[in-house]
């Protein structure tokens, strides 16, 4: 394997950081130069991410493009990155949005341009890193690092109430994720005996599989069955502490999604954020929450997830309906789009909670869709806002007659958002609803979620009608100019994606389906009538490279300044440790639906 192949994931993650460093040395006044360099960086990153996406073998090993080196040996933390089908898709989404975000802010951000673009690039690094981390602490580091640039994006370049919104966003998310840190440490202490402890995701998962199976089997059989009286020590520990740890993980991710009662930071953050911030927030950061449920909360604690499933599904459905109803009550367009995100992310969560293959892959597809369609809505509205500087629906009306091209683009994206067949939104919502009806969840959830589709069409079309059609009611709007070439070039990729993903979903689903399949299997280990064995769901990942030769700890050393530099860890330990994840044939990798 060449150097390029083994470091591909790291390159995708850290290339924007390189450009951020480059930007720091460019003069402040050269705005065009700053923008161009950032755009080039984002485009290069997109090329690499697309290469990674194409090289990803749908039928291959679960985690591909893996790379692992020693990092903090004392804790059992390694620098371990790699992608599965869901992660590689979300990485592609993130990389696609990157250059578009730069183009969307081309004329909007005139103040402190350099800092703005550095923040964008650093945010890109953190998001890509969080998606590809296979070490829990590495994930946590990237997860928290996302907050800082986003906080600055909202707080510095946002609109009037930006400081309050930025602070609310930061504290809400931080409170949740710090509790997750406690759960992560507890998990680390539970999973392995002292001495061989590791924060590696696959190691922790594999250590817990057996105990999780016992617990699920015990739950399926009922409390009085012999399966529950002979639990292993690990299963007993998980039985008493698993719910708390799951709660900590779930809270952190639910805040990010955001799920119903903890969604209140989102409308503020979206309304106050600059266009670029809104696009990234809606496009990628919200998916970090659903991704977290998919990657961590549910596979690590399947038995608790099974108990919490009705509650989480109910909250998702409440989110769908409540978000849609709130949209109907909005006069502020940006707030409407923000609440529509609450509603759409409700579908993603419902699809996950359905625990069927259709639901899970529909949910994953919906994550990508929402990134495209809501990202585009924020982008388009940003163009309108740049011209008129008002967010109120009543200040517009009849815009289609002065900005026809813009109106066409907006309507197409609206169709995607309300899941008109032929657009990408249809595939995602259809699969989610199908999965929900097929699942063991109460049928009412599916019925209520379907009403959300109708409400969604109602509020979006109502908004489009009030903004674009009818008489031109405000004289200020008569002289609005239509989109220029740069704006069209920014919107065009979104329109293409809407149609391509709507008409040709199979290439995308090919990569999502194996991941969805494994996800559902991991949830079902030990459940009633399930014949999935531990070996089938165990994760196969690269092992740690052997330790570089170094003196044994505690070995006598002569006193002297020459010994001040101890060997461990200070330097990158191995120049190019190969990540030989021999693609182990997975019995489930093949059968897609």
């Amino acid at each position, binding site marked *: 394997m060449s150097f390029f192949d083994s470091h591909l994931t790291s390159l995708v993650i850290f290339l924007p950081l390189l450009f951020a460093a480059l930007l720091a040395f460019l003069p402040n006044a050269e705005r065009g130069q700053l923008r161009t360099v950032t755009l080039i960086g984002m485009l290069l990153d997109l090329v690499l991410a697309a290469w990674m996406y194409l090289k990803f073998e749908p039928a291959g090993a679960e985690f591909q493009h893996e790379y692992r080196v020693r990092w903090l040996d004392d804790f059992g933390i390694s620098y371990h990155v790699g992608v599965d089908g869901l992660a590689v898709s979300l990485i592609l989404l993130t990389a696609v949005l990157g250059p578009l975000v730069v183009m969307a802010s081309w004329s909007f951000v005139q103040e402190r341009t350099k800092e703005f673009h550095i923040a964008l690039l650093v945010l890109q690094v953190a998001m890509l890193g969080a998606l590809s981390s296979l070490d829990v602490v590495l994930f946590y580091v990237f997860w*928290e690092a996302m907050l800082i640039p986003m906080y600055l994006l909202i707080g510095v370049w946002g609109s009037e109430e930006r400081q309050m919104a930025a602070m609310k966003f930061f504290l809400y998310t931080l409170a949740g994720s710090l509790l997750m840190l*406690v759960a992560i440490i507890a998990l680390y202490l539970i999973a392995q005996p002292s001495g061989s402890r590791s924060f590696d995701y696959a190691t922790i998962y594999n250590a817990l599989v057996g105990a999780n199976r016992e617990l699920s089997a015990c739950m399926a059989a009922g409390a009085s069955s012999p399966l529950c009286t002979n639990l292993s020590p690990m299963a007993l520990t998980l039985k*008493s502490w698993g719910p708390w740890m799951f709660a900590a993980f779930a809270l952190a991710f639910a805040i990010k999604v955001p799920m119903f009662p903890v969604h209140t930071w989102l409308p503020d953050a979206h309304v106050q954020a600059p266009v670029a911030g809104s696009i990234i927030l809606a496009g990628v950061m919200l998916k970090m929450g659903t991704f977290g449920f998919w990657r961590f909360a549910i596979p690590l604690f399947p038995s608790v997830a099974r108990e919490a499933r009705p509650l989480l599904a109910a909250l998702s459905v409440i989110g769908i309906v409540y978000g849609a109803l709130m949209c109907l009550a909005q006069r502020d367009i940006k707030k409407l789009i923000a609440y529509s995100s609450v509603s759409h992310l409700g579908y993603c969560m419902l699809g996950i909670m359905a625990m069927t293959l259709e639901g899970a892959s529909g949910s994953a597809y919906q994550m990508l869709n929402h990134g495209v369609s809501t990202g585009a809505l924020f982008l388009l509205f940003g163009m309108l806002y740049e011209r008129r500087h008002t967010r109120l629906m009543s200040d517009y009306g009849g815009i289609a007659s002065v900005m026809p091209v813009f109106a066409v683009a907006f309507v197409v994206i609206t169709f995607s958002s309300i899941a008109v067949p032929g657009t990408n939104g249809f595939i995602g919502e259809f699969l989610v609803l199908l999965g929900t009806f097929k699942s063991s969840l109460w049928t009412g959830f599916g019925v209520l979620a379907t009403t959300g589709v109708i409400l969604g069409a109602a509020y979006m079309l109502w908004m489009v009608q009030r903004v674009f059609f009818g008489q031109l009611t405000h004289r200020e709007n008569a002289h609005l100019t239509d989109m220029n070439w740069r704006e069209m070039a920014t919107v065009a990729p979104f329109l293409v994606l809407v149609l391509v993903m709507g008409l040709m979903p199979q290439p995308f689903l090919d990569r999502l389906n194996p991941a969805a399949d494994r996800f559902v299997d991991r949830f079902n280990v030990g459940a009633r009538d399930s014949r999935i064995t531990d070996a089938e769901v165990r994760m196969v990942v690269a092992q740690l490279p052997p330790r570089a030769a170094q003196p044994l*700890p505690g070995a006598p050393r002569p006193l002297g300044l020459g010994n001040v530099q101890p060997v*461990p860890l200070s330097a990158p330990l191995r120049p190019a440790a190969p990540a030989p994840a021999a693609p182990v044939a997975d019995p489930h990798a093949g059968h897609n639906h």
Partner: protein
Amino acid sequence: MFTIPVITAADFGPLIPAILLLVGAIIVLLSEVFLSTASRSYQSVITALFGTAAAVIAVGAVGEAPRKVFLGFAVSDSFSSLITAVICVGLVLAALVARGYLHDRHSERGEFYALMMFGAAGMSLLSVSNELITLFINLEVLSIATYALTAYLRRGARSTEAGFKYFILGAFSSAILLYGAALLYGATGTTHLSEMAGPLAEAFQSSRALVYAGVFLVGTGLAFKVAAVPFHMWTPDVYEGAPTPVTAFMSAGVKAAAFAALVRVFLSFSPGMPDAPLLELFATLSLLTMIVGNLLAIPQRNVKRMLAYSSIAHAGYVLAGVAALFATGAGEAGFRVIGSMEMHNAANAAVRSDALKGILFYLLAYTVTGVGAFGLISALERREDEDRGTAWDLERFAGLAQRKPGWALAMAVFMLSLGGIPPTIGFIGKLYIFRAAIDAGMTGLVVVGVLTSAASVYFYLRVVVYMYMRPAADGAVTHNTHWSTETALVLSTAAVVILGVLPGPVTGWLAMGGSLFGQ
């Protein structure tokens, strides 16, 4: 028959850093007499050089087998070497910051740096003290130096008031410590910490009240020095009133040295008495300190005072690590206040070793971050605002990102590190401490710690808000820049970020040497 004790050259080995610092102090004092240059900026350079040399020697001694020296009055182990290194890092950074600060106030005098080095020598000696009287004397050496430093700018009312307050309360706490030591001597018949365990166990059977009184009085005396709640009252006033470089030095050095003494004293009591009361004592102190320190910092608009409260809060996190030292048989009955968790607990020794590493790493993290933050404040404040008390107002930070982008970035990094946000050294420190505490069964305490640190991010981020999101006040001030201050800021910012991403060298030192701690 009284025998003359034999002291060989080897006995002086562990004291070399302290001796170097004393030599440096004397050189600075003598230079004051024999050199008649107008500028005294070379003195800070001398201090920094001697501090660096002492730190390098201390780090070089890490990993050596623990041994007793001076007939058991002192002990040399990796723990004391690392504490000395942390103290010297604080000394070097604070001395560099002090150069510009004193220069702007026309008050550069040799005694300032000499006092700093005398104080640092006392701190280093405190970390090796293994006998109660020696410990008390070294505590006084460092305290008297810091009392004098606090009142160093004697023209203003604030500095004098702070010095006086610190002196009164400090003397009071030393007396309490001495009283406790006397009671323990009465109970056990020895003042040597390494011989304490056996007699203490006997005394615990016969006169339990006496032992408890002695232990708690010693604990109280040391809790004053580390500013644990409810013994923290002096901290905000003293930290605010002292010259800012002195505050930086105190918050790092005094705290590190006092924690070293605390850990050494109580670890040597531990075999002689049940661990549960010690665990409960420190867990409660930690709980109170984290909550009160962080909550009281929230309303502060004075950044220096906010950092003073924050330093109290950080002592609370270190105390959680101290509590983890005494978690024998974690999760057993008798300790339910803080919550416990059953898992395959690491062997007691492993938890203890993790907790010691955590304490050391956290102290280092706090030193580089805290000294950096106080250093930045000292660079920002102006003499004429001090009497009005607005020198440290949040408004002073408004628009700093435009006026001084480098400083704003450094301050933002310090604030994030204090809040424990990755990828900074503060995060790794918290990870160490929380891991040890959870392993010791104190999940509840850690949850409180995590929630309070989430609350603390509010007031740390407020500084960032002012720097980056508020326009500069009218008539924006120009700031004097000094190469030494800039160097200190660059060094500490680099340390915060680089050790936050690659803590390799430091964790390497911590991992070296099978036993960190020796009696």
